[in-house]
Every structure is written in C-alpha cells, then in structure tokens.
C-alpha cells in the first residue's frame, strides 16, 4: 500500500551521495517524508507536528551529518524517538496488596472490550490467578450474554446478576454501578483474586455515560483502568483518549485489532497525548490472541519498516518446521529443486495468506505496484493445477517432460501447452537460481556475519551481508559487491530474471538496513526462534 519509510528516505537521500554534510533543505525534505509516513499511519496531526519538530532538531545535529549513511541515521533517530514515546519498558498489571485486584475496562463502542475481558481473564488464569468477569455493560443489547459466552470460552466465571438489555429498544434498567460493586463483593466472598469489570462502550462526547463510568470507578476503586482502543482509529484517537483520560483517568491502554493491517498510529497519538503506557495488544478473535505490548515492534509497524521481519515471523508461524528443515537440508546438499519441492513450497506460502500481500511485502514492491494491482491470487491455483497434472515421476525428473507429456499435462489442467511451457521455463530458471545460491553458500563463514551479529557495528554487518546478497544472486561467477556490476550481469539473463534479480538485490540491502539500524529487533527475532 505505502512505500516504506526507509524506501522513501533512501530516495530522498539518493541525491545527497557525495555530499559531505546535510543542508537544512535536505533535512526538510526528509522531515516531510517522515511527516507523510506518520500521517499515513493515522498518527494524530498535532502529535505528528510535535514529533517531526523533535526529529528535525536531532537530524540537524552532529550525529546525522557525521554519520556514514545519513538516511539510516535518520531512520534510526525516528525509530528511537518513537520507542521513546511508546515507552521502553513493558508495564505489568499493578496487583492489589490485599483483597482482589480490580481491573476496569473502558472504551468506545466496538473497540472490543467484552472480547478483551475474556482474553484478559484467560491470560490471567493462565498465570495462576482466579479471575472473575463482571458484566456491567447493561447498555448494549446482549452484551451480558456475550460476556457469558466469552467467559465460557475462556473458562472464567462470569458474574452477571442483571440480564442487561436484549434489544436496542429496552431502556437500560439495571444499575451498572451496583452490579460492579456486587461483583467485587462476590469476588471477595468467593476468593477470586482478580476482578475484571466490563463497562458499556461510550462515545467520548456522551457526558451521561462518561459520568456512569466515573461512578463505577469511584465505587470500586480499581487498581487498573484499561482504556481499550481500536488500532484502526484515525485522527479521532486524540479526542477520544483525552475525553476518557478526563472522564475515567485510565492507567493503561490496550490496543485492539492489532491483527489487522492498520498501522496503528493511534498508539503513538494516545501515548503521546496522555502519557499513559500501552500495556497489551489484542491480536485476534480467539481468547488466546492476547499479548504484552512490544513498543519496538509497534514503532516499526507505524513506520512500515517491519515488513521483512513480519514476513519472517509469518513464515515462522505458519511454516511447517519439519518441512523447512527438509528444504534446508536439501538446499545444503545441493540437491535438485524438483516440482515436489515446489509444490510443498507453494503450500507453505499459501498458508501465509494472500500472495498479493506477500509480494507487496517484498522490499521494492513499489516498482511492481501496478502489476500487483492486477494480480489475482487464483493464478496460483492454475499453477498448482499444472503441477498436479504431472505424474510423480515427472515431478521429480522434469527433464523427461517431452512434447506429448506437455500436451497431456495441458489437457489435464485445462490450460494451453504454451502455459505449461512457460511454467517449465520459469521452473528451470528457479532451479538454476537455487543451485547457484546453494553453491555460493557458506554463509555462516562470511566475515562479520555470524559472530558479529549481536550488537555488531554497522559497517561490518553491512559488508558481510552485502556479500551474501551478491552471492545469492550473481553466483559463483562474480562475487562482486558492486551493485551496478551485478545489475549489468543480470540484465544479460533476460528481463524477467533481471526483475527478480533486482528484487533480490534489494532484499539483501534491506537486511543490511534492518540489521544495521535495528540490531535490537533482529536479535530479538533470533532469540525468539
């Protein structure tokens, strides 16, 4: 959808090569790009203004003008500033010293409070607590019912003395304050150590409901008031956050629907405007889809920089470990890449979601954006159909596929022979590519690669990785680190290959960037593996 910030900054800085220092105009151009990236991520305008001013000030300082790679340095500054606002340390729930810990949830309608109550309950139960959910949302139709179902799914008891409203037409009758109070009393009597109070969703401008929330807060004196906000929210985040901060004075923020592809600039807006920490992220519909908030990842997400990291993570989440190992082994042994492998690979990739999105995640996808727009995921089905129309023998030994076999395959998969030919041709290219990569292996022995990984100095990593990129692509013939040379070589291999190749080149570069700027994130990923 959007160019990543690093891409944009890189193009801004392209003209600056050779220049010793950055002029103020250069910095201005950079700052404009940063501003645009933040706005695209839905960071609130006043927050953007402030943030950009801070970045500009630092960017004009010595650390940038003396850096070897000003673009990288600026991205690093932005990243640091973002993390600074989002909070470095993850805050934990403040537990009560005596009696049950009371957690109250507040937020707009549809932000996901009721669902979150279940998730939080399940999460706390997993940590050995004994939570109780209290249904104080007597406003929304069937909210009580929903909480009961959610509680059941999460295996957490629900205190719901009042049925709440069952339709938009009932006037809310019960007293949510009383329900909350009774809930806490019940928890005390039944020795629950955590009480989670679900309240009605409300608009920031609705004084009456806000007062009700305030009353609940005053009545039960919660240790934590969590403000639940949708990651998709736009500029209204500031108004809403301020209204709730004033209304119920929340102690922490939960970002919901983070499993969507919203960039979640709201997180930055809320954290910056209210100064309250973001404590949790809700990342799916199941009761287990709930996690502590990672400021560093959020920073990258807002800047749209984490794509490659996300890709890897998605791959890790969905790739079959055994399958990956088998592939890696095959790769290392320099075995031929067969259609069977191709089929397996295709299935693994499919599990990662839409091909279009994966392609868009590839660095440098900008160039092919137009083509991407026309891309149809069902084309993959057609490819699969072709491969599936081959006999197992043909899949392992594609060389035996002659004219009549091709005709049969085409008939079997409902395509024309020329399409089968194209597939064979491209498969041949892929095979060669794999082989070359395998031969140019020895990646662990690369200088500055393995050992230097944690906290390695930027330049060392740069050299090492670049070498890898060159090998991966140009193969054993030329291990030139010179990008221009590489490109020239690739051009010889036909346009299609050139296109792939350039993606790959960028891929290598992207790793440089990630590793160099964000050693922390990378390290983490490695640690988590």
């Amino acid at each position, binding site marked *: *959808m959007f160019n990543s910030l690093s891409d944009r900054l890189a193009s801004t800085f392209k003209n600056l090569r050779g220049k010793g220092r950055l002029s103020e105009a250069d910095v201005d151009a950079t700052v404009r790009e940063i501003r645009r990236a933040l706005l*695209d991520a*839905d960071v609130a*305008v006043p927050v953007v203004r402030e943030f950009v001013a801070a970045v500009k000030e630092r960017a004009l300082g010595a650390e940038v003008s003396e850096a070897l790679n000003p673009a990288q340095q600026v991205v690093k500054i932005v990243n640091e500033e973002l993390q600074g606002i989002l909070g470095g340390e993850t805050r934990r729930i403040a537990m009560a010293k005596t009696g049950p810990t009371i957690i109250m949830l507040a937020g*707009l*309608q*549809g932000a*996901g409070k009721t669902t979150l109550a279940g998730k939080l309950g399940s999460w706390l139960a997993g940590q050995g607590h004994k939570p109780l959910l209290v249904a104080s949302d007597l406003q929304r139709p*069937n909210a009580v*019912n*929903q909480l009961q*179902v959610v509680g059941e799914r999460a295996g957490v008891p629900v205190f719901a003395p009042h049925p709440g409203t069952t*339709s*938009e*037409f009932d006037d809310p009758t019960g007293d949510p304050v009383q329900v909350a109070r009774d809930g806490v009393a019940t928890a005390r009597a039944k020795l629950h150590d955590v009480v989670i109070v679900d309240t009605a969703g409300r*608009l*920031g401008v609705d004084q009456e409901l806000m007062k009700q929330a305030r009353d609940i807060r005053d009545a039960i004196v919660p240790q934590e008031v969590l403000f639940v906000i*949708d990651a*998709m*929210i*736009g*500029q*209204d*985040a500031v108004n*809403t956050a301020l209204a709730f901060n004033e209304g119920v004075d929340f102690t922490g923020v939960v970002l919901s*629907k983070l499993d*969507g*592809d919203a*960039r979640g600039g709201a997180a930055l807006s809320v954290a910056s405007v209210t100064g309250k920490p973001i404590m949790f992220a809700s990342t799916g519909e199941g009761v287990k889809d709930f996690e502590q908030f990672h400021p560093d990842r959020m920073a990258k997400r807002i800047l749209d920089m984490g794509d*490659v990291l996300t890709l*890897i993570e998605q*791959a890790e989440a969905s790739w079959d470990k055994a399958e*990956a190992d088998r*592939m*890696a082994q095959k*790769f290392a042994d320099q075995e031929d890449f067969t259609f069977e492998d191709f089929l397996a690979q*295709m299935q*693994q990739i499919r599990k*990662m979601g839409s*091909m279009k999105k*994966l392609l868009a995640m590839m660095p440098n996808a900008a160039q092919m954006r137009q083509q991407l727009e026309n*891309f*149809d995921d069902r084309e*993959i089905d057609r*490819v699969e159909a072709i491969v599936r129309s081959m006999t197992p023998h043909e899949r392992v030994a594609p060389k035996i596929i002659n004219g009549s076999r091709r005709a049969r395959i085409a008939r079997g998969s*409902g*395509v024309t022979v020329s399409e089968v030919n*194209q*597939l064979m041709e*491209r498969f041949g290219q892929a095979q060669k590519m794999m082989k070359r*990569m395998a031969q140019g292996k020895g*990646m*662990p022995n690369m200088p500055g690669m*393995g*050992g230097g*990984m944690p906290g390695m100095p930027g330049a060392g990593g740069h050299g090492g990785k670049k070498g*890898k990129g060159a090998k991966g692509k140009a193969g054993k013939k030329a291990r030139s680190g010179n990008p221009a040379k590489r490109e020239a070589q690739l051009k010889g291999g036909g346009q*299609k290959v050139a296109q792939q190749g350039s993606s*790959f080149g960028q891929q290598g570069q992207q790793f440089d960037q990630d590793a160099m700027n964000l050693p922390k994130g990378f390290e983490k990923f*490695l640690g988590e593996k």
Partner: protein
Amino acid sequence: MWQAGRVNDSLILILFIALGVIVLGGLAFVLLRGPRPPKGKYPGTRDADDVQAPPEPAGTAEAPAPPRPERPAPVAGRLVRLRARLSRSNSMLGKGLLALLSRERIDQDVWDEIEETLLMADLGAGPSQRLVESLQTRVRVEGTEDPVHVKQMLREELIRLVDPQMDRELALDGAGEDPGVVLVVGVNGVGKTTTVGKLARVMVAEEKTLILGAADTFRAAAADQLQTWGNRVGVRTVRSEQEGADPASVAYEAAAAAKEEGADTVMIDTAGRLQNKAGLMDQLGKVKRVTEKVAPVTEVLLVIDATTGQNGMVQAKVFAEVVDITGIVLTKLDGTAKGGIVVAIQDELGVPVKLVGLGEGPDDLAPFDPEGFVDALLD
C-alpha cells in the same frame, strides 16, 4: 557458532520464502489473464441429462400479515437531524478553516494549515493535498483573496470530491421473481448488525416485506441481537441454532426462504472480519457465491466506522475485491469523528456512501446527502 547456525537457518528460510514468493509471483504474472470460458459451451450449471429440480412452488404468498408492533419514524425528517448533528460534531473543521481563511494574505503557511485541518478530518494525505492544490490553482486563476469566496470554492471542491451525481439508491429489489439480496459486510465492531436492524426498520416503514439472515455465526449472541431487531418490526430472522455453523448455509437458507415466501428483500448480516485474514475473506466470498445460487446479490454494503483512519481505504479495497461492494454505510457519525476517509474511498474506488448511522436510536440511519454532508462540514 551456535548463534551463527541459527542465523544461517533463518537466512535459508528467508531465502526460500523469498524465492518461492518471487517464482510464484512471476509465474502468476506470466499466466495472468482473465478467467476464460470453458472450451465447450454449457448453457447452465446442470448437465443436459440432469434431473431438473422441481419448479419452485409459486404463490405461497398467503403468509399471515406480520404483527407490526411498531412503526419506525419516516425517513423524511432524518436529513434535518443529520444536518443538526453534523454541525454539532463537525463544527471544528468549519470554524478552523474560516479562521484560517480570514487572514489577510493567503501564504504557504495558511495552505499548509488548511491541509492539516483536512487531515484532521481523516481525509487522508493524498486527497487533502489534491484538494489544497486545486484550491490553490483556483485562487491563483481567479485572483481572489477574499476569504468568503475561498470558502465557497472550498465547498465546491469538497462537493466535487464527494460527487453528488453518484447513484446512491439502494438496490433492494431483485429482478422478476427473485428477492433483492443485500449483503452487509465489514470489519469487527463497526455496527453491521445494528445497521441491518435499522435498515430493516426503514424497509418496513416503506411497506416492503423482508427476511433477515443471521450469517454471523461467530460472534457470541450476534444472531440473538439481529433477531431482536427483526422481532421488533415483525420480520422473520433465519438463523442457525448451532454456534459456529457455516455462514454460507445460513445465508443460502435465508435467501431461499425469501424466494419461497415471495419477500421483496433478504438482508444478510455477516460476521465481522479483518480484511487481512485470507481465510475469513474466502469465507465471505463463499457466502456471496452460495447465496447467488438462489438469487443474484443486488447490494453489498460495506459498513465503516466513522472513527476509522487510513485503514478504511485498505478495508474498502479488499472487500471490494472479494465481494464487489456497491455501497458504503458510515456509522457512528454522532461522535467527534468526522469520517473523512469515505471521501477518499469514494474518490479512489468510486463506491458511493449510501447511508449514514447517526447514533444509538433505532431510527438513526439516514440516506447520505453529499451537499448536506459538506455543508455541515463547513458551517
């Protein structure tokens, strides 16, 4: 060395993914082309020697008149309320702009701030910039520095962006015997079920017969919620008793019931789904395909929350791809949010905003009126 091994492992993994993606992507580009017709010609989905399904029993329209405990408020007065509400919630934009434009000279700072003000309304960086540029051009061409005139121009440009010429009529009737099929889609928590309920009231007020389909089989109590809406205005709700049933089958049954009973329209409420969940989007595509076995879907409404920011555009794009949305419903416009993203969506996808939701009351759903919308933004 251990560390190095890990790095190596993950690098291989990355290479594999990257290569796979590229190869597959490249292949797909090569093979890229529209769906082609099968080689032989088939007149329909059935084989010639297939046993024909018995013809639909015609005219079982003897259904007892549903009890109508309530008559929803007429549609006519709603626009006035929309205007009143909008001017209350959105006056910030109008005032801010007026203050800016009242300065004596219009310099770059002023333009920047106009752009920022538009951005605050969630209009999006692209459309805001374009709006400001066309306004700048006009100011230069017409050589005016009169703030009132500039404001007038801004109004015109905004209206042009919103495009009043667009057809905003809801396609509620099917062709011939078929019922009109309305599919309501959107991400989680935007108010789909409520919109269906409110729309049902509007249709009942217009003397239409309809059936509701509770194809949201995922969210706890969603079907109950819809049924409550239906019962209130005497409309039958087709639902599955079993939680987690196949939504496509519920939708099919609802459409089939509507056809059988000769209802004018069937409205199908679907579960909220984030647009990047490929599986769920496939499921939605299936709901539509399966429903179309009964009658063509005449209207696909995408519900968008007014607080949604730039992600609204992504939502609209993906949903448009999967189910070909024909209209947008902008909900929760009664807060401080301005819902400017719909302007951008309309501009980019050409899908008109058809309805706006203005609050929690059962009759707070109004047809979208572009001029009223813009006027309210600027007043």
